[in-house]
């Protein structure tokens, strides 16, 4: 009988553990990401496993890149310190599960905004921080100058679980060219395979090609073809169901872009408080009560600009100065001929 009692108690104990866990998951129904972030003291941000210019860690583990800056902006806005971010490197395959399962709170990992991703899998895209398009890289010596010169039997290296796989099929199918897709899970494996001659061409977003080219054994022997075969608007993603958090991330990004539009940057932000332009004063928290809408103080946007900088600064620091894509192309402000256009912060 004693043995039986012992068995029963262990069963009860196991149930207790299970139900304790269960009540916690039930409680997560309310939008509590901000609250949890404040309690935790850092923003949990999912990034790539190393894409120079977007999210890349140096030898000492410091992350830089324009995707990284979005998370830093959110940390500056919510916690007052842009360095309070914990970065989680994710493969393309892992990224959405990590977000929906609550392992991270922002996914800022050169992710393409598409209908099915936005509507189907419990995610919400909050904006676009880089307008990209898919391209092809080939060996210079091949003499290929355009995608129209691809022949039947071309082998193509690319990443698993990306829109790239779908675009590539659309592209080759519509031209009636048979091709051999060689699909790897990690970007580094794709680069290694292409470098070894396993594939004739490497396809991914053009920014990615420019960045990955630097990792090849002889970068100058490779060239990115001029054609762009798809639209790839890349932007940060949050979980569905927490609209306050969604707004915070969206307007943190928008603040960076709008700050550039109004010429507010990290060095002049404090002085702009006395500007004559009400739009600028709102941007640096000197007018209006914009932060209250998210449950933040009024300096949230000033902190973003001071600690992270505006979009132009972020682009220059991460992408232009590193030689990845010196020309901003479509990622220039709408006032300067690009397509960066964000709703007004008012």
């Amino acid at each position, binding site marked *: 009988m004693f043995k039986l009692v012992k068995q029963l108690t262990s069963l009860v104990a196991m149930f207790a553990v299970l139900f304790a866990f269960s009540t916690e998951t039930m409680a997560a129904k309310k939008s509590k990401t901000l609250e949890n972030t404040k309690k935790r003291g850092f923003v949990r941000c999912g990034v790539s496993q190393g894409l120079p210019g977007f999210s890349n860690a140096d030898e000492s583990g410091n992350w830089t890149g324009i995707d990284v800056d979005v998370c830093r902006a959110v940390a500056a806005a919510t916690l007052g310190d842009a360095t309070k971010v914990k970065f989680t490197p994710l493969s393309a395959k892992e990224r959405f599960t990590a977000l929906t399962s609550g392992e991270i709170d922002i996914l800022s990992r050169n992710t393409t905004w598409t209908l099915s991703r936005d509507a189907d899998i419990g995610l919400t895209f909050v904006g676009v921080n880089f307008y990209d398009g898919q391209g092809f890289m080939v060996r210079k010596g091949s003499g290929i100058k355009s995608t129209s010169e691809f022949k039947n039997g071309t082998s193509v290296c690319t990443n698993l679980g990306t829109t790239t796989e779908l675009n590539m099929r659309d592209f080759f*199918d519509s031209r009636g060219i048979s091709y051999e897709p060689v699909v790897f899970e990690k970007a580094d494996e794709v680069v290694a395979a292409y470098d070894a001659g396993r594939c004739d061409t490497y396809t991914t977003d053009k920014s990615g090609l420019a960045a990955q080219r630097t990792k090849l054994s002889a970068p100058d022997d490779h060239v990115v073809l001029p054609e762009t075969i798809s639209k790839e608007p890349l932007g940060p993603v949050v979980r569905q169901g927490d609209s306050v958090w969604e707004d915070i991330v969206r307007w943190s990004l928008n603040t960076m872009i709008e700050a550039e539009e109004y010429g507010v940057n990290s060095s002049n932000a404090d002085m702009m408080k006395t500007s004559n332009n009400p739009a600028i004063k709102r941007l640096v928290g000197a007018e209006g009560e914009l932060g209250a809408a998210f449950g933040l103080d009024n300096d949230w946007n000033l902190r973003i600009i001071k600690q992270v900088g505006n979009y132009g600064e972020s682009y220059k620091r991460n992408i232009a100065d590193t030689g990845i894509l010196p020309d901003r192309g479509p990622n220039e402000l709408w006032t300067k001929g690009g397509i960066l256009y964000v709703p007004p912060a008012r």
Partner: protein
Amino acid sequence: MNNIIKKFLPQILAILFVVLIFGFLTINAQTNMDNRGIDFGFGFLSQESSFDVQFSLIEYSGSDSYARAFLVGLLNTLLVSFISIIFCTILGVIIGVARLSSNYLIKNSAAWYVEFFRNIPLLLQIFFWYYAALRALPLPEKANAWFGVTYMTVKGYYIPSMVWENVNVFLYCGLAAIISIIILRNYANNLRDNKGKQIPVLLYSLAILIILPLLSFLIGGVSLEFELPQLKKLSKISYIYEGGISLPPELIALVLALSLYTSTFVAECVRAGIEGVSKGQKEAAASVGLTPNQVLKLVIMPQALRIIIPPTTNQYLNLTKNSSLAAAIAYPDLVLVFAGTALMQTGKAIEIVSITMLTYLTISLTIAAIMNWYNKKIEIKEK
């Protein structure tokens, strides 16, 4: 009464516990999916997959459904497992027997082989064969022909393909040959058991196996031609072979790694089986006048097999499950195609992962069932 409670209560509680856990997990998953706006359902299986797969045993393109993509992945998994199981068995038997050899060099090389390959993690071996060994191969235009007509290159192994005419006549002849061999064997067994007469079954069987298909060529109108791989220029510096069959390097690396790794375990099973048969059996068999070959075939092997089969089954199951490491080197198996690309494109994580798990379970149970049947067949039949 007390005894009955003592006997059944723990079992009832255990069942209840399992049911509750599953119920809890289901409800928990459902609530969380509802909260995040994720639908549950298998409707996606009939949707167009819109992605291509590198290598497929059946006709497949992006306009086919996800269900067909699943089938493509499944067949690729079965293909690599099947080839590797055959290779690892052959290699394992040779190495296992070699370990028992009285020759010092053979015995020790076999022991070294086993210790080396079974103590390096499989994933590392896969990476080695793919990235180090196969990548050292030449580009297509620089490849030398092996056996005159096949080419081993960094883009794959190109072999001639067979172009048949009236292939069904040939297949019927082959089938007829196999049936006649079975009849012959039964006849020979009867003859031996009843009249004590022996006929050279192996020789006759080989003759049938060669003559019947040969006849199909001579008078059945069957013809066979080989299509050789031809070098084709893709651009100034890149070439591929066209025509023939191309085995992708991913498949080759995976088969190499899986068979070399698993063969070490099979070798140990074989050694254990043979050593498990007591020495007296061999001596007794020799003393009644059986030749060494007969001793091995009629006395040692039937008994050794009983010891070898069950642990070897485990190795086959392991091999099949290990084949899911294919995803690391871009071989389009079930995990890469279905639990990888299809999962990413649909976002149906729970559905796809459960289908994949069930599939591996089914494959494993099938292999186990076949091996159990074989084990039953050869076990001691007490009269």
